[in-house]
């Protein structure tokens, strides 16, 4: 479960996607997410899934890796899917026996939902796998720039996000340590009902939270000591630049997605 947090971490490489500007990748990821939720047919979703596996492999992420990252998501999705399965309404899957309790629409819908989530997670993790946290922040900051006019502290938000990214592995590490120190917690943590699990989390969550607060305090002091907020304008490094790679990647992905939408409409209409 804790390993799931480190899923989708940056893998260095020189693939086309690596060389793409973070802004292009963020926008493409957004379009991708919208499309994942608008397509109607499982065929299109499967096609998208295969493509994202393929691209991930090209970007230096082995298939095994991608699959392992999906495990907790599938597990989570299955729980939700079960509710759909029994309370979906409509005709049943069979006349009698256990299957007569299962709604046919529900079964289809839950399968589609699991598929959607899988495609979504796997596709968007391509963004984090090929972009360093720093350039990601730069990209987000650039994209949020228009909000600055409405008084949104974009620079501070970007700093906050990059701090969060920096400290996620530390907090995961701390949680692992705490789990190790309390073997019995860790046993309860992975057994029992949801409520039991939630309760057994408490001795873990409280010291973890206290640790985060303490660290935050020390961090703020250390940032002060290094002149944070001393100047109106921080120096900006690595100004982002669009290049031919972005046109190529953007063009190919958009063309592919449009084609997919067309086929999807066709399939949905034909069915």
């Amino acid at each position, binding site marked *: 479960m804790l390993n799931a947090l480190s899923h989708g971490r940056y893998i260095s490489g020189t693939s086309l996607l690596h060389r793409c500007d973070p802004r292009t990748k963020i926008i493409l990821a957004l379009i991708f997410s919208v499309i994942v939720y608008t397509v109607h047919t499982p065929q299109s979703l499967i096609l998208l899934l295969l493509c994202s596996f393929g691209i991930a492999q090209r970007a230096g992420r082995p298939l095994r890796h991608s699959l392992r990252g999906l495990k907790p998501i599938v597990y989570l999705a299955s729980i939700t899917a079960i509710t759909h399965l029994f309370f979906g309404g409509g005709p049943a899957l069979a006349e009698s026996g256990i299957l007569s309790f299962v709604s046919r629409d529900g079964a289809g819908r839950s399968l589609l939902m699991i598929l959607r989530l899988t495609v979504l997670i796997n596709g968007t993790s391509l963004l984090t796998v090929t972009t*360093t946290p720093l350039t990601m922040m730069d990209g987000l900051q650039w994209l949020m720039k228009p909000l600055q006019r409405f008084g949104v502290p974009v620079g501070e938000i970007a700093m906050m996000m990059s701090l969060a*990214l920096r400290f996620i592995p530390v907090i995961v590490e701390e949680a692992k340590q705490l789990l190790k120190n309390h073997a019995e917690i860790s046993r309860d943590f992975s057994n029992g009902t949801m409520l039991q699990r939630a309760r057994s989390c408490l001795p873990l969550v409280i010291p973890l939270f206290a640790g985060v607060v303490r660290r935050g305090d020390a961090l703020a002091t250390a*940032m002060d000591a*290094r002149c944070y907020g001393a100047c109106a304008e*921080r120096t900006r490094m690595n100004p982002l630049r669009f290049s031919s790679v972005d046109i190529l990647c953007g063009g190919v992905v958009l063309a592919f997605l449009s084609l997919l939408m067309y086929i999807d409409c066709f399939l949905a209409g034909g069915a």
Partner: protein
Amino acid sequence: MTDAILTLKNVAYRYPDGTPALDNCSLTVRRGSRTAVLGTNGAGKTTLFLHLNGILRPSAGQVLCGDNPLDYSRAGMRKLRSQVGLVFQNPDSQLFSASVQEDVSFGPMNMGLEEREVRTRVAESLLAVGMAASADRPVHNLSYGQKKRVCIAGVLAMKPEILVLDEPMAGLDAAMQQELMSVLDQLHAAGMTIIIATHDLDFAYGWADDGIVMEAGRLLAQGATTEILLRDDVQMALGGAPLIAEINRRLLLIGIDLRDNGYLPRSKGELLQAITAQTRQESTP
């Protein structure tokens, strides 16, 4: 004293929860000196350091940089923070960024320096602490000692006049300590004033020129480490003495004095030399 670079005059400080951490504390740090700050846990070393670059403001008394009282305005702080570089005790709570290079650039970027200048400074400071080869590594994978070095580089990149380090040797292995010491010696040779809080009496005795001994938020003693660390009240307060002083005390009992004109050896090398000299004297008559 005209060559004082930092001065505290009757400084008192109470934490918001009421803990008195500094109490009528007066001391000076000489320009270009290597100063060791000593004191038991809770004596107020860290609190003292936080006053030196204006992060804490005295409840009473005054802190002076050169001859001028600290200017606590925004502009004053901007200048002071880059002038007095403070390296904290725990490296994990002062590395903010994902990669080494990025972290070292944090200070210079906050100072609004030009991009090219930032790059030069980052490269120089990483070189100075021997971490140039790890510039692109993620911070969270580094060893404890490497993290400490990155912290020092991050402060060096602001080109401070005074480098203040809170227990830099704690948690480092012997080789790493030796290396860090030589880095500090180079910086000192280049004219930097270096202030170090430490619990290591032998290090303070052997390395530092000046010593500041704190006890319960007050200054107990200040002066050359070779003098004050031999004082009884100081040794009592710190709960120990430098090993060389202990050795000499025992040897005096059997009539051997390692002192040469009242000068006790400071380093391992000098100690061995003194012993050789003594044994030669023993064997000649």
